[in-house]
């Protein structure tokens, strides 16, 4: 189930991400859980600590304990910054020291609605036309989709590392690193 999006929004967003980063003979956005990454960002404060910054120093994929899974606690200021970025300033004076801020939740809710409730069922051509008609929102989603496809799996996307394995990128390699030979030779 979605964390913050409604079921219909999640279905539309999944279709949007698949249209932006479609599967070919290799996995695409749906396989990688890119919509879950975005839903996880929009709902980051449903978790304690909020899922903003994954922990360190290593993920466990190349040995060592899986520290990425333990997200960082936020300071009061950082919580305010990320809540404002995600929820918007909502008229609260402490968030509006340089004016009102439209949050990601509002942009996604409006942007997905603008694409139409039938988006997931439209033809590729129709989907493309609707995405091109709202370049600001499409650009916003594409940037997040790239993060969800090629970022650390602990954030909800790049499921099982399919974003990395498919492009020959090893991902986070600590504590192994690379040998001198792997650095210097073809």
């Amino acid at each position, binding site marked *: 189930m979605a964390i913050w999006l409604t079921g219909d929004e999640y279905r539309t967003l999944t279709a949007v991400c698949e249209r*932006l980063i*479609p599967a070919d003979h290799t996995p695409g956005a749906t396989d990688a859980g890119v919509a879950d990454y975005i839903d996880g960002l929009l709902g980051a404060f449903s978790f304690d600590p909020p899922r903003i910054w994954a922990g360190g120093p290593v993920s466990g994929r190349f040995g060592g304990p899986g520290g990425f899974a333990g997200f960082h606690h936020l300071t009061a200021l950082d919580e305010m910054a990320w809540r404002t970025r995600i929820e918007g300033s909502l008229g609260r004076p402490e968030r509006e020291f340089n004016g009102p801020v439209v949050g990601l939740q509002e942009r996604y809710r409006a942007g997905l609605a603008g694409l139409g409730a039938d988006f997931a069922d439209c033809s590729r051509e129709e989907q493309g036309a609707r995405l091109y008609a709202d370049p600001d929102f499409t650009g916003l989603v594409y940037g997040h989709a790239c993060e969800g496809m090629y970022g*650390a799996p602990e954030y909800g996307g790049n499921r099982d590392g399919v974003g990395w394995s*498919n492009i020959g990128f090893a991902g986070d390699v*600590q504590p192994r690193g690379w040998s001198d030979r792997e650095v*210097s030779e073809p």
Partner: protein
Amino acid sequence: MTADAIIVGSGPGGATAADVLTAAGWSVVIFEKGRNHLIDLEDPGRLLGDYSNDEIKFIDRYFLGPDPFLEPRTFRVGPDDGDHAFVGEVNSIPSTVGGGGTHADGKVPRFREEDFAMLTSRGPQEGASVADWPLDYSELEPFYAEAERMIGVSGQADANPFAAWRSGPYPMPPGPSMYGSKLSAAAAESLGYHPYPAPGATNSERYDGRPACNNCGFCAFFGCPIHAKGDPVAMLQRALLTGNAELRPETFVSRIRTAGSRATGVDFIGPDGVERSMDARYVVVAGGAVETPRLLLLSGFDHPLIGRHLMTHFQTIAVGGFAHLRLHGERGRAVTELQDDALIPDEASRAAAKEAGLPWMKGGMVEHGGPSLPILEAKIYPWGRSHKESMRSSPMRDRMWAFTMQGEDLPVATNRIDLDPTIRDVRGFPVARYTYKPHRHELAAAAHHGPRLAAILEAMGAGWTSIVTSPGTAGGPGGRTTEHAPMSRHVMGTVRMGTDPATSVADAHGRLHHLENVVIADSSVFVTSSGYGPTLTLAALAARSATAMVG
């Protein structure tokens, strides 16, 4: 309480000053406005495990700060843009314990002798304030050597024929060269250039209790998960272990308090949001060349040159595509080779300067390679059916190689940091406004050197090449309108040092002419910009200034 010295900022400048002062027995309080992810402050022998190979955290989510919502900056090319043309992230260096040293890929070359005497060696330029520094290379050399030892620098002393003289070898040999860098260095040599292993603040062997770098590739923009970068963790850790230093993160210094011709301490706001004051015999300001002049201006200091002569490095970036190669630039330390040929005048650059109507022209160090990260790459490609194929064939990452020239940027009085008239930070203080337009010297140097860098890529076998600059220039290098803030994080020169209080703000030991117990310990004091990364030089200057403080 009264400290011997308050240090504002925990980056390479403040950390170096703290190391020197605490070693001499001074009590020091270091204020850092960012969070601490570096050192266990209860047990400074232990380094934290918060850094990671995580592109989302470090690139997309501001883990090292500053958060551009909490602490924005503004940018404009000039007054024609009005109060500002842009609000947000402008040329930000990390705001965290360790400052800019935490995110750098750790190239730490020394300047050359000439860089301290540009007016004498090259002469004036119309529209710029070219001047000699109030000290020369030989006065700084012992502190360069000390800074290299403090940080732990790896390098090869005889590898760069243009390097300044050295009193001794590097503390460590260079680490392994990256594959692409070996190819680009061979191509450069075939054309008569002189590439050399970049002096690095990355351990090539175990040093000072910290491990050798294992070349994970998440170097530029990232904190080091294994703490193989010595800059400035080594200095901070040593200072804290003396027991003479206290480090207070999440604490913003809002004002330097003065009485007559002396500073008495600072006002600060800690994590609880309450404003307090602390007294000190000395105030050392090391916030970097943007935040340092901002603090002086917030304090009401009125020297007319505070904030002026802001310099960055004008970047000329040549990229080339190699359909037949996989360059795996994600293995290694982002940049492992440099070349200095563009700093040295030759017949061609003299002719180019003459043709551009300039008395002389100087480029900068050229970096072979650069960071190689998949999210950054993915955002370059168009969305849709071609996306996955683009990522697999990777024309803009795994099959691309780049040169970045960090071009000498002339000091121009109208390029400056001042306080933005309307934008505030989260604590309610005016933010820094960055006003910058390159001198035509920089554009001419980019136009001259860019094609030469592209020619090296062609000799390396590139199927295509392209040249861009930062800041961007409409109509390509040589065009007149800059469009964006410079990408370079090398910021310098806003609290210029010199011997004459009429033409400089600080003296040769970083002391403000009008407040001699306020000492500037960062790249703000630079007189000219050199074309080399500023970190080692600012650390050497901080060591020299702190040494003078303790007598």
